[in-house]
């Protein structure tokens, strides 16, 4: 019995070894027979030093920056470009990186899907193939951080979340784009027209390394097309308001009063809905309200001031609107759930990003498309404030195809593309020139008025190096307050203490200061000597 078994095993071992040897010989033969692969890698590695030579010459061009305006003045006298110039009018060689492949990581959204759809045209123009890795937002935000942190150069173009903007530029996870803009071989500045972007949109990509300050200084990232996010605006149901004889509320007190009337007279409608859950950008809503009540998240020296009366009053109003007039389980409502409720006709007022205007007024996706009105955020005792958010596109510093990546960014953020994307109804443009077009004015009428008005009182997010953490702390307490576990005042005080501890650990109160002062374009509040956590 044991005899044949033994032979079997031996045979098996030999067969296995034979297979391994065969595979090894095959692999060796394959490598030997495909020398082009080897030479190809050699050529790319030899081209790398040349590109790095290009980047080292950049500082000289950046010295020239001061003279750039004069050259642009000279050229404007020779030839006049249309307000939205075609891609072919750019005076650069689009084909200079023909045959390159670049990878892009972003979240999946109407804007990015539209970019993906148009990418073959870019390939036709430049010979550069773009691969899109689009993920759901949460998955994307984990992946992009890992990609940036691991310095693998896996992706060439990164889409950067508004809330992560400061972290990305301050950690040097992006290759500054100003180097490429100032290189005449890579960018036709007059055609590209950087000042055409709204200044607040550009500020999300600015960084001054000398003072370690985000929001000012040189351009490190470019505003992504299809985004010009005003958060929040007030959506309302025209039919419900006219049925009950109500006006569009101008203040938060009026809003609460109208919610009370709607709750009394229409029991099947949720009067008010917005984001209330932990994370998922929920902090945007109370942040804007704190601005309307005259407060801010930090004082000028990065000390949290959520325990001041203005902030407590604003958060109390937010919590009471959600608790008394929001949907059941409001403490778990993220933007998707809130939007679904409003779209299906379940809510009368909806406070959320202006970006949803297209979706909410599209009869294909919204049951209330014809009855949606949009208005500015209601005012608090100190007027109005809204958050301005901007997605950006950036180049990974470890990418092997940085110049090709820049060509793609230049193409996709050009005035032409931004216009086409907005005309297709996919998202608002961050460029001023887009809004002068008749097509856009007809299609986005109400929205343009609200955005134009809110441009006068917008603030950017309180983006420290640890913005993700401060956001999580603040929204976990506001969510707990909406849930009824603690009062709004307690939520503010406890969040303030925890955020102070986190900021202290991150080195924000070190002497001498490691970071520049805090200014988000909101109410700048000087640091008071009797400040307490």
């Amino acid at each position, binding site marked *: 019995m044991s005899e044949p078994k033994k032979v079997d095993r031996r045979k098996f071992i030999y067969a296995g070894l034979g297979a391994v040897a065969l595979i090894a010989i095959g692999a060796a033969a394959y490598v030997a027979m495909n020398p082009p692969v080897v030479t190809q890698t050699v050529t790319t590695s030899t081209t790398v030093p040349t590109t790095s030579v290009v980047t080292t010459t950049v500082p000289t061009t950046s010295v020239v920056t001061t003279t750039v305006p004069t050259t642009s003045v000279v050229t404007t006298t020779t030839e006049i470009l249309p307000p939205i110039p075609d891609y072919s009018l750019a005076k650069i060689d689009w084909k200079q990186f023909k045959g390159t492949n670049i990878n892009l990581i972003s979240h999946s959204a109407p804007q990015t899907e539209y970019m993906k759809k148009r990418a073959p045209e870019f390939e036709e123009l430049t010979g550069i193939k773009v691969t899109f890795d689009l993920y759901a937002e949460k998955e994307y935000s984990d992946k992009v951080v890992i990609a940036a942190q691991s310095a693998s150069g896996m992706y060439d173009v990164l889409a950067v979340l508004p809330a992560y903007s400061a972290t990305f530029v301050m950690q040097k996870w992006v290759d500054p784009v100003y180097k490429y803009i100032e290189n005449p071989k890579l960018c036709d500045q007059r055609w590209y027209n950087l000042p055409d972007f709204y200044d607040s949109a550009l500020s999300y990509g600015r960084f001054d390394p000398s003072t370690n300050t985000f929001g000012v200084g040189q351009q490190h990232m470019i505003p992504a097309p299809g985004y010009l996010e005003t958060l929040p605006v007030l959506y309302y149901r025209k039919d419900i308001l006219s049925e009950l004889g109500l006006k569009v509320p101008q203040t938060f007190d009026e809003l609460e009063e109208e919610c009370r009337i709607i709750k009394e007279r229409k029991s099947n409608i949720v009067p008010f809905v917005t984001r209330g859950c*932990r994370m998922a950008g929920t902090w945007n809503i109370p942040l804007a309200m704190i601005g309307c009540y005259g407060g801010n998240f930090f004082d000028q020296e990065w000390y949290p001031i959520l325990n001041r009366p203005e902030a407590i009053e604003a958060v109390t109003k937010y919590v009471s609107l959600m608790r008394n007039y929001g949907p059941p389980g409001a*403490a778990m409502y993220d933007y998707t759930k809130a939007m679904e409720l409003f779209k299906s006709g379940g809510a009368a007022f909806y406070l959320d990003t202006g970006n949803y205007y297209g979706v909410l007024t599209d009869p294909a996706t919204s049951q209330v498309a014809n009855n949606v009105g949009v208005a500015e955020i209601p005012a608090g005792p100190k007027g109005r404030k809204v958050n301005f958010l901007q997605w950006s596109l950036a180049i990974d510093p470890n990418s092997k195809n940085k110049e090709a990546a820049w060509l793609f960014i230049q193409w996709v953020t050009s005035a032409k593309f931004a216009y086409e994307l907005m005309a297709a109804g996919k998202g608002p443009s961050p460029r001023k020139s887009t809004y002068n077009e008749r097509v856009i004015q007809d299609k986005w009428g109400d929205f343009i008025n609200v955005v134009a008005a809110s441009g006068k009182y917008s603030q950017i997010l309180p983006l420290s190096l*640890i913005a*993700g953490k401060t956001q999580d702390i603040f929204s*976990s307490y506001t969510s707990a307050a909406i849930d009824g576990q603690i009062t709004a005042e307690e939520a503010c005080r406890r969040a303030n203490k925890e955020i102070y501890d*986190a900021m202290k650990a991150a080195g924000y109160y070190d002497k001498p200061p490691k970071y520049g002062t805090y200014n988000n374009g909101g109410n700048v509040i000087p640091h008071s000597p009797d400040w307490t956590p």
Partner: protein
Amino acid sequence: MIKVLKKSSHIIFFLPALIFLFVGIAYPIVWSINNSFYQWIIGGNPIFVGLKNYYDIFFGILSKDFWYSVYITVILTLLTVALQLTIGMGIALLIYDRTQNKIIRSIFLLPMVIPPVVSGTIWGNFIYNPSYGILNYVLSFFGVAPQLWTYSSQQALPSVIVILVWQWTPFVVLLLSAGLESLPKAPMEAAVIDGASSWQIFWYVKVPLLKPVILAVTVLRLMDTLRAFDIIISTTLGGPGRATEILNIMTYLTAFVHFNMGVASALGTILFTISLAAVIIMLYILRER
């Protein structure tokens, strides 16, 4: 050469598994334990701080959150495993000697084949939603007032436990019914002749004989539930407030939202140690049988 190969063939064949074990399991664990001794915010340079992360977690600024998470984790794990075992045993006893049990067994297995993230999304958005969820709608026929389920801090934890029990009880049923089928018939027949009631047969004959299977199932479920992540992340993300923030969710948030890799590694190491301890204790009991 051939002789050497022949002699060491067992090593050669063992090598792939060894490499996988090292690259896929041992190296990440060692690396993560190493990281836990550093103060390391993503992007910054790791600074060696010794046991400071552990001190912060157990006694320092993170201790309140940590012990709260431990409390939530323990409650969730104990309740879930106890319910899974009780319900699983009941169902296993019902189906194990039925003739058509293959079909019934397949039906009972259905929840297990749905990916947890999908079932979490379905439960969280379509079953538990207080406004348009199907559960409140069905309950309204029986005159039950609408409940908040995962949308309120009081009901979130029990609601999550229900999903976990629904998803993984089939696994318990599968193993226990297989165990019941393999039991020897003689002791049962002897007990019947001695006039034992069916409860007595179950408690004094079947359960002692089944003990190894029950222990194995308990170990597997305990380990899995301690690491329950996908269901919670897709239903509540640790909320409302911090009502369902088990250790795993806390670790995830620390790493990928707060970008604090040092503390996250320390939390991961602690969770790993707890799981390991639980398994060693269970295996020890198992060996005694």
